[in-house]
């Protein structure tokens, strides 16, 4: 067990000059997919809450399909099925994009979290009190500025607790990247296990690292809630 820790603490935490560590990879996967997913979800949720019906139902279908199937299958489809198609492999731009495991995992994770985030932001936008919108209208706000100044700032605040949940779930979901050979925390753990056949320390260290990351994220979101939801605190 001591040998395992001696050999693997660097891949887990620090990395070597030409490889980033499992911890850094997990963080990068989480942040990249959440940022991309959120950026896409913001316009989609507004369109789904307030757009015309021909734009609403395709968005509904998108969230329905991606929330109704396991992320693991989505990852397999993007990572192995799309690259398995001959025409994708033979198209220069597509082929080189889908050949890279990291591109595929970030794409799969971003699309998946986008579907969940769209759904929870839609709920928050729809829950905007009528009075807020009426007050904004009576002050002459309309269209995009109504959304940018009034609806979204209050909807995003309302969505914060649910979104913190989604980010934690995404952090946990990044462990699937190890099945696509991306060197995240779990991949390092699986390598360590294959080397030493000691499952408890190998996966135990990974579990502790993930738990620490989760606690850090929870703490950060609690700080964010204290800052942006101050007006709702009851004490």
């Amino acid at each position, binding site marked *: 067990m001591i040998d395992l820790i001696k050999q693997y603490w660097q891949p887990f935490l620090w990395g070597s000059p030409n490889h980033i560590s499992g911890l850094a990879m997990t963080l990068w996967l989480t942040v990249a997919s959440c940022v991309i997913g959120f950026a896409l979800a913001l316009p989609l949720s507004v369109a789904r809450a307030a757009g015309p019906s021909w734009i609403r139902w395709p968005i509904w279908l998108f969230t329905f399909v991606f929330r*109704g199937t*396991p992320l*693991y299958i989505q990852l397999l489809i993007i990572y192995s099925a799309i690259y398995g198609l001959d025409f994708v492999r033979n198209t220069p731009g597509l082929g080189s994009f889908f050949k890279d495991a990291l591109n595929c995992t970030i794409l799969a994770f971003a699309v998946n979290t986008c579907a969940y985030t769209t759904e929870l932001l839609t709920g928050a936008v729809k829950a905007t009190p009528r009075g807020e919108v009426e007050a904004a209208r009576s002050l002459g706000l309309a269209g995009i500025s109504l959304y940018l100044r009034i609806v979204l700032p209050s909807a995003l605040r309302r969505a914060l607790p649910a979104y913190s949940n989604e980010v934690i779930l995404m952090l946990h979901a990044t462990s699937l990247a190890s099945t696509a050979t991306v060197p995240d925390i779990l991949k390092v753990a*699986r390598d360590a296990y294959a080397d030493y056949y000691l499952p408890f320390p190998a996966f135990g260290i990974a*579990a502790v690292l993930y738990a620490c990351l989760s606690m850090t994220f929870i703490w950060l979101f609690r700080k964010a809630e204290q800052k942006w939801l101050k007006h709702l605190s009851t004490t």
Partner: protein
Amino acid sequence: MNGYLQQLLVGTVVTIELATVSLLIAFVLGLIGAAAKLSPNRWLAMVGSAYTTLIRAVPDLVLMLLLYYSVQNWVNAITDLLGQPQIEIDPFLAGVSVIGFIYGAYFTETIRGAVKAVPRGQLEAAAAFGLNRWQAFSRILFPQMMRFALPGISNNWQVILKATALVSIIGLHEVIYAAQAAIKGSSWPGGAHVLFYLLMAALLYLVLTTVSNFVFAYLEKRYAAGFERMAR
């Protein structure tokens, strides 16, 4: 191709069995966990909190690999110590116990919240009527608690259903395993067979999640009998 589609259907049955048995284990563990967390005994409450906090902080895939390989190792160590032949843990049993154990932590929180939502007066009234603890639980607390717990249970069920996709990684022959076996055994021009069988697997999951949505909508209506629906 027909043979492979049949395999996919067999895999679907395994997935449904896995998810339902895991759900039952998780639900029972959730009841026990909630009882522990709500108990006046400090030690029991601490054990319950440790269970929910630790399990929910770690990804389910990591826990699955950790428990699956570690428990097999420990069983081997014990059989070696006793000089017995090695026991191979049944993968289905291992799968449902691990998933049940993990989601038991989520159920603990769901049930704890639901129990706390039942007005105290209900249990006091039950005691005043002379019901013993089991009667008060099964006739007063449980039916009312279920109304508050159902949205959470429905959520957990969807997550469990989708988590069963992971057990192909520890060697269970469910939908994804069947899809991958079909992919290995066929070769279509243009390489479209990979996409086809994976999309079939995805479709099966989509049907399962959609059907369960309807079932839970019905259950929620049933357990809300006698309560007015909140205006939306």
